[in-house]
């Protein structure tokens, strides 16, 4: 008999059938009586002042109910308390191509689209900023007036003594790395349906109900209350099925606010669903990041010091920016033992859609730079790349130099297993030319130890109610977005209560019904909502045990709950041989009621057994009935807040990065590089991940594979391509999300380090693996063809340029500007590939109107 009866077994998602039959409802599948359709008019300019909006012609069109503009809801909002810089619709300025100007509400989508053409907006075009390093030099025409130098936020941290660390190093490398911008591109475009009830006394608009594709229903409720000036208790947010998030739905997206404002103005339910292009404009993805990284090591491979200067191209609004730039620095720690760290981070505003949180928030791009440079250093000292990582392991439990507490630490085992399974020792460096292996590691938080809005409130609370027939209802605010949150909740509750999974029903993410949970982001759900569920289940179990113990003439501590039975510890439960129990029940039931199946049997059996004296064992229902008879309603509650010692250092910005536990990952990628075309093919990735304990192995593997796959997309193909602030590839194919033919086999290896504070020892498994994939691939490319790529994605153009430079023996770092050997039509500012095309009308002083830097082009 294993220790657990529910967790640790591959379990189908409890909502699987809804998804495979098409029966499950996502927000866009919903409609309400009298529902109208909203369409948003977007800015065609990257930076412009709005001189006037005339909506009269649009309002006059038959079928148009209302046209909403900025002044209909002028209160600012933003996901971070320090970043309230967004408005439902632009008040006086637009800041990116795609910024929200007006919203038409009409009886049909076609009429709304027609009406949008009838809105006359007069713009005064301003100079725009597209490159973060240019943008930082701005003195006039700032993107936000209160942000001089277009600098959203900068941080300068020094831990230990970085200079002394470099002085003591035997080898130092310094280089610039660039990771270009990527986005979540979740399959479900964002959608929101907002509907007001009429106040029963006045007939005015009363309570608001919002159905939305969100990862954070409670933050949405909070921001709606700010913008609409309504108490939170008057707003109900319901999260239907969500078609993927990856962070793209982890903050309040403009349409969610706009739909509510539009419903108020139109006095009718309004649904807005983004088109795919609008999803790209809503963005909130991973910013283009410029990393100047310096690492020093000793001859034995020990890292002595790390210095990173990170510039993030944050787009036009703050979004999660301040948190992203802090994560980039903080998560330099807690993977390896680094005694000295210096970090300078700059989050810069530009006239592009806002960047925000995306899977592996903040850590991914810096991890790419760090793991690439570590590999280069290993080559330099002639050490195996797996070994240099093993030389720099932490010795937990410990607190890192930048204040992160590390307890469970499965990284050594991750490296060991990945090396073993991939045949690293036998094959590394011995593959035919053009084929190579690369290794890299990564980690991630299992939930941020500090919530976005600082308070002492628990991060997750869960309620459980048990009905008289033994049905368990779990109420949780945690948001299922496809990662398996509801299934995890049900498993944890069933395991603690010793009942079958089928008894458990999960009611999730409805602000009227479920207690507060801050949402599905920073990989916090299993750890925090899992712990809250565990505590709620234990709370209710205590009540059942007290009542059952009374019936069984023993103490509550002596009882075991398992397989729908309650029995005395150690006493051979007659019924773990379930057949025997069924038989007993069947006979008993048949003799009492003549019915041989279903509730009547169980009910009559219960009645019969109830009349008997003390018992050796009880069924779960019997115990529940006893508890309800004894206590009245049978409910339990539990909550979770991270312990104070896990909340990080006291330095400015020290609140971001700390987590009650970290997940660890080590990966080996096998790639081949076509030296004629520059095409990189990933054949296989071995990915081991320390998730503490795998509560549902099939889901854990799915998360690991999905993370690796998404990392591979960023490594090889995915990139948002900009031209004068316009997105050139706003479609799923143009963005180049990999299809099944481009996707490698991923061997997921689960490592269990059993965290002392996780629910049953579990930690996160959905984000930590992503960051290792990019450097594992770049290191494998080096092994295959001997070139180090410093800019992602590793497209054929970039690989070819690096190969050309190697052949000509030119030290070439593409990230330092324009590749002089590239064909003329390719690159312009900053390294993003650009298509030649006519951009929007530009202001005469616009920096982007100047000639392209250096002379792009040359011998090819």
């Amino acid at each position, binding site marked *: 008999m294993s220790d657990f009866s529910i967790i640790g077994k591959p379990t189908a998602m409890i909502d*699987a059938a809804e998804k495979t*039959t098409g029966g499950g409802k*996502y927000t*866009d599948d919903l409609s309400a009586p009298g529902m109208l359709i909203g369409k948003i008019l977007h800015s065609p300019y990257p930076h412009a002042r709005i001189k006037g909006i005339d909506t009269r012609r649009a309002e006059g069109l038959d079928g148009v109910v209302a046209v909403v503009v900025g002044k209909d809801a002028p209160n600012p909002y933003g996901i971070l308390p320090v970043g309230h810089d967004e408005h439902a619709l632009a008040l006086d300025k637009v800041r990116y191509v795609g910024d929200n100007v007006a919203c038409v509400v009409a009886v049909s989508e076609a009429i709304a689209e027609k009406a949008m053409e009838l809105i006359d907006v007069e713009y005064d075009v301003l100079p725009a900023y597209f490159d973060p390093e240019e943008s930082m030099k701005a003195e006039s025409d700032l993107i936000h007036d209160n942000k001089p130098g277009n600098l959203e936020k900068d941080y300068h941290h020094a831990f230990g003594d970085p200079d002394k660390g470099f002085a003591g190093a035997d080898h130092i490398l310094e280089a610039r790395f660039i990771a270009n911008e990527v986005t979540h*591109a979740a*399959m479900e475009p964002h959608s929101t349906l907002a509907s007001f009830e009429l106040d029963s006394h006045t007939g005015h608009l009363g309570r608001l109900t919002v159905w939305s594709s969100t990862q954070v229903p409670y933050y949405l409720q909070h921001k709606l209350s700010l913008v609409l000036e309504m108490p939170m208790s008057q707003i109900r947010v319901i999260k239907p099925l969500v078609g993927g998030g990856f962070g793209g739905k982890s903050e309040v997206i403009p349409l969610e606010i706009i739909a509510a404002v539009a419903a108020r103005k139109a006095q009718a339910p309004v649904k807005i669903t983004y088109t795919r292009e609008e999803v790209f404009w809503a963005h909130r993805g991973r910013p283009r990041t410029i990393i100047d990284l310096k690492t020093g090591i000793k001859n034995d491979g020990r890292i002595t010091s790390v210095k990173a200067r990170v510039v993030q191209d944050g787009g036009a609004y703050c979004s999660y920016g301040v948190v992203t730039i802090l994560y980039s620095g903080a998560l330099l720690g807690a993977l390896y033992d680094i005694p000295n760290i210096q970090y300078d981070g700059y989050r810069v505003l530009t006239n592009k859609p806002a960047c925000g949180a995306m899977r592996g928030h903040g850590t991914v791009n810096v991890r790419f730079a760090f793991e690439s440079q570590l590999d280069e250093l290993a080559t330099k000292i002639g050490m195996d790349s797996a070994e240099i990582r093993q030389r720099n392991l932490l010795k937990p439990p410990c607190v890192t130099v930048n204040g992160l507490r590390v307890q469970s630490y499965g990284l050594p085992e991750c490296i060991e297993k990945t090396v073993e399974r991939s045949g690293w020792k036998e094959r590394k460096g011995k593959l035919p030319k053009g084929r190579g292996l690369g290794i890299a590691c990564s980690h991630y938080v299992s939930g941020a130890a500090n919530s976005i809005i600082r308070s002492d409130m628990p991060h997750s609370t869960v309620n459980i109610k048990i009905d008289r027939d033994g049905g368990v209802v779990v109420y949780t605010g945690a948001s299922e977005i496809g*990662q398996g949150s509801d299934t995890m909740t049900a498993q944890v509750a069933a395991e603690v209560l010793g009942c079958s999974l089928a008894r458990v029903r999960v009611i999730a993410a409805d602000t009227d019904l479920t207690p507060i949970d801050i949402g599905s982001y920073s990989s916090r759900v299993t750890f925090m909502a899992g712990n809250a569920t565990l505590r709620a289940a234990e709370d209710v179990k205590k009540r059942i045990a007290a009542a059952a113990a009374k019936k069984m003439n023993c103490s509550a501590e002596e009882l075991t709950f398992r397989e729908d039975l309650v029995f005395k510890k150690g006493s051979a439960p007659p019924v773990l041989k379930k057949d025997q129990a069924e038989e007993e029940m069947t006979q008993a039931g048949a003799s009492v009621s003549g019915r041989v199946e279903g509730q009547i049997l169980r009910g009559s059996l219960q009645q019969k057994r109830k009349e008997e004296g003390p018992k050796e064992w009880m069924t779960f229902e019997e115990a529940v009935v006893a508890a309800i008879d004894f206590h009245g309603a049978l409910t339990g509650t539990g909550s979770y807040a991270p312990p104070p010692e896990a909340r990080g250092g006291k330095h400015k910005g020290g609140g971001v990065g700390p987590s009650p536990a970290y997940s660890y990952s080590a990966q080996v990628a096998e790639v081949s590089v076509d030296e004629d075309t520059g095409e990189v093919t990933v054949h296989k990735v071995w990915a081991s991940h320390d998730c503490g304990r795998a509560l549902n192995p099939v*889901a854990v593997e*799915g998360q690991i594979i999905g993370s690796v796959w998404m990392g591979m997309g960023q490594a090889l193909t995915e990139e948002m391509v900009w031209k004068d602030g316009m997105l050139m590839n706003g479609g799923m194919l143009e963005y180049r999300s990999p299809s*099944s033919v481009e996707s490698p086999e991923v061997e997921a290896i689960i490592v269990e380090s059993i965290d002392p504070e996780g629910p049953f020892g579990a930690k996160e498994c959905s984000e930590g693996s992503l960051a290792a994939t990019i450097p594992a691939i770049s290191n494998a490319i080096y092994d295959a063809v001997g070139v180090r790529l410093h800019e992602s994605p590793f497209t054929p153009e970039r690989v070819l340029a690096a190969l050309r430079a190697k052949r000509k023996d030119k030290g070439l770092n593409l990230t330092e500007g324009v590749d002089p050997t590239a064909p003329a039509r390719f690159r312009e500012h900053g390294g993003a590939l650009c298509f030649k095309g006519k951009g929007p009308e530009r202001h005469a002083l616009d920096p982007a109107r100047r000639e392209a830097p250096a002379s792009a082009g040359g011998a090819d």
Partner: protein
Amino acid sequence: MKKELVELKINGRAHELAIEPSALLLDVLRQELGLTGSKRGCDESSCGACTVLVDGVAMMSCTLLAASCQEQEITTIEGVSEHGSLAAIQKAYGDWGGAQCGFCTPGFVMTVKSLMAENPDPSEAELRTALSSNLCRCTGYSQMYEAIKSAIAAERVGMAAK
């Protein structure tokens, strides 16, 4: 545009509808008939979330005129379940982690159904090629192959997938 009367046969049932000649099949399914199982992930045949079968052929309904499908058998995800219970492929997608967020799943199920009808024993390479008409952002596709293989095995023995 003036509406016209058309008759569409969907999942074995005939529906008489007044629609604009320019109406797309996906919009008619989702908005006129409330068959919201077929999803809109793009508007341009990029993602495959809207895949339905038209006379057994997998088609993307987001770029298909509804009026052009008259006198053809249209099968949507709502018509896949057999005798009120899950088809092997649906069960297998659930059991093997082939569906995470589930938004692309109806499209994939339709694509796999058409593949299995054409080629009951696809090789791994054929599977990959067939699935490349649909995009998924969650799974990395790997667990889908396991699901499909298990569904094929289950169909072969004539039982629901384990």
